[in-house]
């Protein structure tokens, strides 16, 4: 039975951030992820915002980790090679009476040490955002955007390169407290660990219940999004948020530009019963479009190319106001179990700061010595973002840079092959999509899917029946039109 010092349950942004921090030290650690890739759950299905901290109650963990995390992103982006754009945010007052709320938010932000907050008048906003109508807005320059999946993948892949083990498609089915740690049963075998980190997101309560009676409940709250065609990228430059509804515990339907130019509309907020119910609903999708048009009146109808939903892991119900602070603590009943409960917005922003905190907690038990040498990040190149000069150079080096297989996003054959060669050994259609963007365009895989399949078969020897969309049972195909008979 494989023995570890630290086992992390959950390969979302929290688990991956902790793994990455740990990878700087000489430590025997493993991450169990039940999905076929990291960021399979809420970590990829959010707005991708690096929050400033204006929305969190001062002296809460949410506020503390958000502000701390926010400040870490500039250097993290350089170190890990992912993109961050500090596009800023306007919290807009659609009605005059909302201006009071802007002042309140500014106050909260200043208490949380958020810098450079400013209330702007209607004209100032119009000058910067000609398509947006409002009475006034709170300008938050320290808010930024990332691709949450790019960030999570960068964390996990660099951690893996630096010897943190990642087991994908591995679900923890049972846990037992032992004298010196825990016994972990999974569908891929049994393991032992000294410390256990519960970063299982929506499944965090299920994990706790394997060891003790949980003293909390999870209230899943689904947020649906619409994704706009990149052609409409110039509609807004910064994030546009409405004034949050009081006592709702959610930020409201907002418009968020993305790194690559697709504007996101959402998220909605609907308390649901099933932590896995990621449906997008007719009612909500129509509402998203309607509310988006209230912010941008000239939003065209046929501009939507995709829709998705993410589920917030809330610790309080709708009735109780929907807001609760993070619970990041070692279990009193089960020493050695470090729980991360209720990590919802601003979870993405808070992740690097939370990770540092967890490593600090681990260091109370295990002596952590720095690794002498760390493998640096191999930043993925995107053909579509290179200068013509560099494009020509690359094609001369490797012809596969000249073969475009995703027309909508200008992704080349080699980028797909590189995506499939990732250090986590994740080889689904989505693994390709989230690493090199093939399939994210307006045709939604109409052209590129056949090429990705060809590369999977020919260059990676994958069987037709093993090709999946994003999880073990989401296979794409059902055998052959004509069975090839062996002689």
């Amino acid at each position: 039975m494989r023995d570890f010092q630290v086992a992390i349950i959950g390969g979302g942004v929290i688990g991956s951030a902790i793994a990455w921090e740990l990878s700087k030290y000489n430590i025997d650690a493993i991450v169990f992820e039940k999905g076929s890739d990291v960021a399979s759950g809420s970590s990829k299905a959010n707005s991708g915002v690096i929050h400033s901290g204006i929305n969190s109650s001062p002296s809460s963990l949410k506020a503390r980790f958000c502000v701390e995390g926010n400040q870490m992103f500039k250097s993290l982006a350089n170190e890990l090679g992912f993109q961050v754009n500090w596009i800023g945010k306007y919290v807009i007052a659609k009605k005059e009476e909302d201006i009071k709320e802007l002042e309140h938010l500014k106050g909260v932000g200043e208490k949380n040490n958020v810098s450079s907050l400013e209330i702007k008048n209607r004209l100032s906003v119009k000058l910067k955002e000609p398509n947006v109508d409002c009475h006034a807005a709170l300008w938050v320059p320290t808010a930024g955007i990332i691709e949450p999946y790019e960030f999570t993948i960068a964390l996990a892949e660099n951690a893996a390169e630096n010897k943190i083990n990642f087991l994908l498609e591995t679900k923890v089915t049972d846990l037992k407290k032992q004298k010196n740690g825990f016994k972990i049963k999974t569908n891929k075998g049994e393991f032992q660990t000294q410390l256990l980190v519960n970063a299982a997101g929506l499944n965090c309560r299920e994990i706790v219940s394997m060891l003790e009676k949980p003293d909390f409940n999870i209230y899943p709250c689904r947020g649906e999004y619409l994704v706009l065609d990149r052609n409409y990228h110039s509609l807004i430059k910064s994030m546009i948020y409405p004034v949050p509804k009081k006592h709702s515990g959610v930020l409201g339907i907002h418009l968020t530009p993305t790194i690559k130019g697709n504007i996101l509309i959402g998220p909605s907020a609907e308390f649901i019963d099933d932590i896995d119910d990621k449906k997008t609903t007719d009612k909500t999708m129509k509402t998203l479009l309607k509310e988006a048009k209230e912010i941008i009146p000239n939003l065209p109808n046929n501009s939507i190319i995709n829709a998705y939903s993410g589920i917030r892991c809330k610790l309080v119900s709708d009735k109780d106001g929907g807001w609760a602070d993070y619970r990041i603590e070692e279990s009193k009943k089960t020493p050695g179990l470090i729980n991360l409960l209720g990590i919802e917005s601003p979870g993405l922003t808070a992740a690097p700061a939370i990770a540092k905190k967890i490593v600090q907690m681990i260091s109370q038990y295990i002596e952590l010595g720095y690794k002498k040498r760390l493998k640096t990040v191999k930043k993925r190149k995107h053909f579509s973002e290179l200068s013509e000069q560099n494009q020509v150079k690359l094609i001369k080096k490797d012809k596969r840079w000249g073969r475009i297989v995703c027309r909508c996003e200008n992704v080349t054959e080699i980028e797909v092959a590189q995506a499939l060669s990732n250090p986590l050994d994740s080889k689904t259609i989505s693994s390709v999509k989230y690493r090199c963007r093939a399939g994210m365009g307006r045709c939604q895989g109409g052209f590129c899917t056949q090429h990705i399949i060809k590369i999977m078969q020919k260059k990676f020897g994958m069987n037709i029946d093993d090709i999946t969309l994003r999880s073990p049972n989401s296979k794409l195909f059902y055998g052959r039109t004509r069975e090839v008979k062996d002689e």
Partner: protein
Amino acid sequence: MNEKTITCIICPIGCKIFVKTNGKRIRFTAGYKCKKGIDYAKNEALDPRRILTTSILVKGGEWPLVSVKSIKPVPKDKLFPILKQIKKITINAPVISGQIIIKNVLNTGVDIVATKTIKKQSIN
């Protein structure tokens, strides 16, 4: 006499033609608008035939399948038995469009021919 409703496919109108038939003779009752429709309905009621298009496995070709068709319409009730025959065949590349794959399939007097040219796979 059986009653049948035949949707004519000769022109976009798609008249629904009502006929009575005993399998050998036919009587038109209503629905037709032109002579082409009458001819079509007669054939369709007494001897319905279809062009069959499908594909066959290719060995050593640039593509794994070659599309084929029946050179003339075959009796509708023989479609699946003919398909069964066709599915058994593997052909070696190169295949030239028009090449006869099966002569007189299931004694229908109809050949199955290739409808695509598949070159031999270059050794790369």
